[in-house]
């Protein structure tokens, strides 16, 4: 065996978590707590420098719980003790990948939600919040909402933005409704940059659910989510600019966001944008958007579209149809 594996820098600080002789809840710690069994001669580490390599394993696991794989791997490669501490989480990543394969039927395996759930739960047991969130999703789809919420709570407590977002949304959707808690978690996820959470938070602020109605804040979050690519937020932001809610009127900004939402497939936005184009005299483009809106299910668009079609020649109509058929939505973050 390589002699070097024994030369850990062990610090007394690693055992600092047991200052009192009284038993505490630490005995019931989960499997993810691994303590280094190797005690070598303690090197005299300078008392003033914090030795981050000697962070206790369970703290490291907690820190790295919401990491995706690249971050986890980078953290594991920092130093040996971190690598050891994070081994359980790396195993969780393998299980996560397995679970995703079962869920979507990739990599040569058939779609199997039960096996997916089993894999995700194993990953969650090893401490990965990504696995917890995925397991929660499967429970939610099955209708087992309590189990889903329990998993989301665990993930949210560990700082996972997706877990916090899902937890907030589930508080808005299950009985008994708990708007205050929902807003609290949505706010945390939003600050963490989660786009969907930002949109939901904006909705709550807009409607005054769980928090005082605040149009300026709502618009601020709509815009953040819209910049992040969330289509519905773009539509709402456009409406806010149109009606001057929470900020000053700006036809230009309203048009800009409506167009963006329309380009990404939002039915109502396509309708509005089509109307705006028509009012500017851009008949061909207007028809394309109105046709798209009709296909998305906007009944009102049909009437306007037919009215405009009368004004076009046959070749223009064909061209419009061709353009619509070839149209592809721009990617968005849903």
């Amino acid at each position, binding site marked *: 065996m390589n002699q070097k594996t024994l030369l850990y820098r062990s610090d007394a600080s690693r055992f600092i978590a*047991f200052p009192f002789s009284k038993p505490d809840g630490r005995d019931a710690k989960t499997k993810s707590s691994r303590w280094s069994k190797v005690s070598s001669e303690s090197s005299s580490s300078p008392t003033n420098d914090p030795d*981050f390599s000697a962070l206790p394993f369970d703290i490291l696991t907690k820190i790295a719980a919401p990491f995706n794989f690249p971050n986890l791997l980078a953290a594991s490669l920092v*130093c040996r003790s971190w*690598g050891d501490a994070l081994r359980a989480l790396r195993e969780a990543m393998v299980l996560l990948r397995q679970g995703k394969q079962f869920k979507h039927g990739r990599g040569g395996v058939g779609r199997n939600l039960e096996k997916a759930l089993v894999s995700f739960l194993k990953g969650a047991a090893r401490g990965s919040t990504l696995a917890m969130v995925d397991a929660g999703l499967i429970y939610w789809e099955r209708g087992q909402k309590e189990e889903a919420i329990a998993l989301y709570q665990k993930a949210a407590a560990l700082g996972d933005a997706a877990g916090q977002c899902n937890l907030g949304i589930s508080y808005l959707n299950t009985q008994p409704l708990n708007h205050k808690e929902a807003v609290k978690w949505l706010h945390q996820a939003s600050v963490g940059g989660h786009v969907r959470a930002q949109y939901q938070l904006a909705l709550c602020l807009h409607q005054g659910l769980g928090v005082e109605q605040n149009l300026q804040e709502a618009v601020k979050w709509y815009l953040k989510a819209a910049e992040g690519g969330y289509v519905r937020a773009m539509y709402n932001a456009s409406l806010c600019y149109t009606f001057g809610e929470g900020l000053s009127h700006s036809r230009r900004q309203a048009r800009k966001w409506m167009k963006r939402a329309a380009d990404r497939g939002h039915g109502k936005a396509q309708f509005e944008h089509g109307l705006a184009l028509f009012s500017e005299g851009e008949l061909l483009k207007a028809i394309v958007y109105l046709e798209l809106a009709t296909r998305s299910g906007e009944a009102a668009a049909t009437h306007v579209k037919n009215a405009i079609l009368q004004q076009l020649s046959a070749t223009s109509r064909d061209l419009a149809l061709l353009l619509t058929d070839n149209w592809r939505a721009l990617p968005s973050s849903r």
Partner: protein
Amino acid sequence: MGSTSTKIKLRTSDQKVFEVEKAVAVQSQTIKYIYENGCPDSVIHVHSVSGDILSKILDYCKKHVNSAAGKEDISPEELYEWDANFVKVDQNTLFDLILAANCLKIESLLDLTCQTVANMIKGKRPEEIRTTFNIKNDYTIEAEEAVRRENKWAFDMLGGVGTMVIEELADDTMSKCVTNTKSRVCVIAANQIVMMRSISKLANKKSIDVYKQPQNPTTPRIKESVKQRNVGTGFIELFFHFKCKM
């Protein structure tokens, strides 16, 4: 004397004594346990925490107790700001805070400090993490390879998990795309699929980063929205959407 004005004495490792309200002190589950099961009258020793750290911790606990009880008029956003400023400390203090919050079992403080450290780790390469935290690399080359090898499958699974460098993407062409696995990449720019190209292995590139316009050496790498679709064993179509450099 109502129980609200009960005071608890805490003695730190450097023999400083702090007297605090019970409500503040029992934010720490450890202290709460000892107080309720041990000796409520005499002083509770907190061996592992020094005076400075304990005083900071007590500030934190007091702030949170007061805001929860409504004694202080502070909104959740303001409390959040206060917390963010609380952890803007030097590394010594941060490290001590983590360990102290862990042994005193103050869950919210532990969450806060762990999040802070997590944010300092995310998005960095191992070397950068070591520099940030002043950690010595004690991996042998074999050991490091072993860790990478055990997770080799992850290198092959880009998109949403890995990161990609696409340098100098002009409007209609993709000049360079580098990866160390076989992948087909679809780049969508301005709603047009510009190029599909199969990419072969390139030595020495271990990680690949997407730079979002404008590229600034000081901003951290930002990953654009990436969607991935498996089109057969070993091949993944990756869709990137980002503004083009012109």
